[in-house]
């Protein structure tokens, strides 16, 4: 098939899925935090607040776009554009599954497989700082300026441990292309322990994984490192003066960065779309079992309804889960759906940790944040890199 046409189709699919993920990630975040804090979260718009993201988008689009006086217009308007562009570009090198064969067309489940994939992600995420820094500077507001300064200092500092944490699994995997990174993690020790980077022998990369995740929290400006937008000191930080779609762009960039970082962590450390145990032991039936359990729970609660309308809604969901379980059993679809399921499950788990931590931990003080990066995280990442290189050099053939 025509390469251009194929790329266009893949781009449309990826963009569509990514945009919906970003919108609903925010809904999930609000729901999870609400349940952690013993609230119910959004419930008014649609069943269980499921249409809340749509309502938010409509609100943000129709809101008046305020332009404060004495701002530097060019940079003020450029900043959200930069932030969202560089946040969204990164997804183009993330592979979601193996090379598949659809109707005679062989194609990888990604937009493009660069042989410098991981460097590309590092380069692009480094450019994202400009959006935040410029937004803070151009807003003509001292809170925004301080937020922008804090954020750029924080992002520069945490890029170092992040890069070092990425380097140590790369030493083991010996490639920069994401597809090959995943393929090198595909076999199993003793037939059942997966050869993911965090389980790798002789030197498991569990520390590198932890450092990466911590640095990722700081890079995406998430709690406990969300100092750029510390409300009690800085109003809303670098996006204080932004409203309507310009604010939404920053919001979207933050969530897109979260998704990208989770994808990179999954690919580098958790074996990408590889199942946690081999297919011959039945890892292909895990999604079926999960959906069957969900269906059974639905049917049980429909039989003993807590609310009157449960008798109608829950059986519908039960049947839906049964259908999904059945779809996972169709042999033709399995090579596409199973990798997607495992990839989605791992990325989803990391995203859940992001949200969970936001609901649990307080915020660092600024000097603590910098001390933590330079005096703890950086040396630990360095030691980890040295130890890994030593292990690699000693076991090299």
């Amino acid at each position, binding site marked *: 098939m025509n390469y251009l046409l194929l790329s266009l189709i893949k781009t449309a699919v990826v963009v569509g899925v990514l945009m919906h993920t970003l919108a609903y990630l925010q809904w999930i975040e609000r729901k999870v935090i609400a349940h952690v804090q013993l609230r119910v979260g959004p419930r008014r718009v649609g069943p269980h607040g499921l249409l809340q993201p749509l309502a938010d988008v409509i609100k943000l689009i129709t809101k008046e776009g305020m332009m404060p006086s004495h701002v*530097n217009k060019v940079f003020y308007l450029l900043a959200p554009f930069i932030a969202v562009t560089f946040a969204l570009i990164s997804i183009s090198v993330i592979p979601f599954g193996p090379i598949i064969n659809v109707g005679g067309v062989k194609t990888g489940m990604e937009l493009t497989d660069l042989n410098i994939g991981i*460097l590309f992600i590092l380069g*692009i995420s*480094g450019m994202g700082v*400009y959006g935040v820094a*410029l937004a803070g*500077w151009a807003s003509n507001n001292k809170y925004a300026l301080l937020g922008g300064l804090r954020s*750029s*200092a924080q992002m*520069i500092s945490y890029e170092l441990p992040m890069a070092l944490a990425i380097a140590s699994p790369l030493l083991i995997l010996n490639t920069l292309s994401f597809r090959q990174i995943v393929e090198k993690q595909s076999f199993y020790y003793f037939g059942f322990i997966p050869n993911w980077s965090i389980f790798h022998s002789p030197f498991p990369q569990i520390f590198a994984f932890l450092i990466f995740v911590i640095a990722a929290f700081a890079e995406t400006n998430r709690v406990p490192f969300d100092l750029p937008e510390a409300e009690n000191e800085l109003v809303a930080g670098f996006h204080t003066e932004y409203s309507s779609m310009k604010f939404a762009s920053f919001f979207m960039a933050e969530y897109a960065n979260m998704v990208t970082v989770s994808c990179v962590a999954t690919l580098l450390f958790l074996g990408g779309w590889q199942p946690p145990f081999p297919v011959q032991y039945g890892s292909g039936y895990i999604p079926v079992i999960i959906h069957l359990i969900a269906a059974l729970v639905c049917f049980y609660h429909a039989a003993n309804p807590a609310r009157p309308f449960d008798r109608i809604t829950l059986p519908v969901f039960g049947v839906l889960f049964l259908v999904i379980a059945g779809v996972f059993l169709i042999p033709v679809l399995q090579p596409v759906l199973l990798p997607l399921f495992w990839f989605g499950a791992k990325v989803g788990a990391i995203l859940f940790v992001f949200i969970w931590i936001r609901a649990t931990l307080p915020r660092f003080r600024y000097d603590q944040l910098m001390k933590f990066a330079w005096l703890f995280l950086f040396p630990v990442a360095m030691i980890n890199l040295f130890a890994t290189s030593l292990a690699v050099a000693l076991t090299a053939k």
Partner: protein
Amino acid sequence: MDQILFLLFAGIAVLCGINLVLQSHPISSALSLVGVMGALALLYLQLGGEFIAAAQLIVYAGAIMVLFIFVIMLLNAGKERAVPRYLWVRWAGLPLLFAFIAAMAYIVQRILPPSGEVKFGAFTLGSAEAIGTRLFTTYLLPFEITSVLILIAIVGAIVLARKEIE
């Protein structure tokens, strides 16, 4: 297609370079420089130097220029004021520049041997692997000496920046 892309990125690089000189505000100039570096990275990529392109983006555009902008923001530097110049400088500057460029082009044309035609995609030694092999075999000594130089610079910066504490 290659030529169109080359002309596009080269044009962006030149435009950003001119803008860098013309802008009076430091932030605008610094961002134009980022534009130049981004365009250069794309040109490297087009010529087959994938690793160099990525390094250009990460090191120059992503780290050094961010520090520049950070410092400009921190010092809150305002617009540069144009210093009044001699009249002859204003009128003779541009012609002299063109004369210099023409002289350089003529000398390069005359003295240097004619280089082969550049073909897009002909260069295949730009991958991270190829560059790593070269750096640690053929160019090991220059590479190590450069790293020592950078180390000296780092130590010097720390010594200069350290507060005098008695």
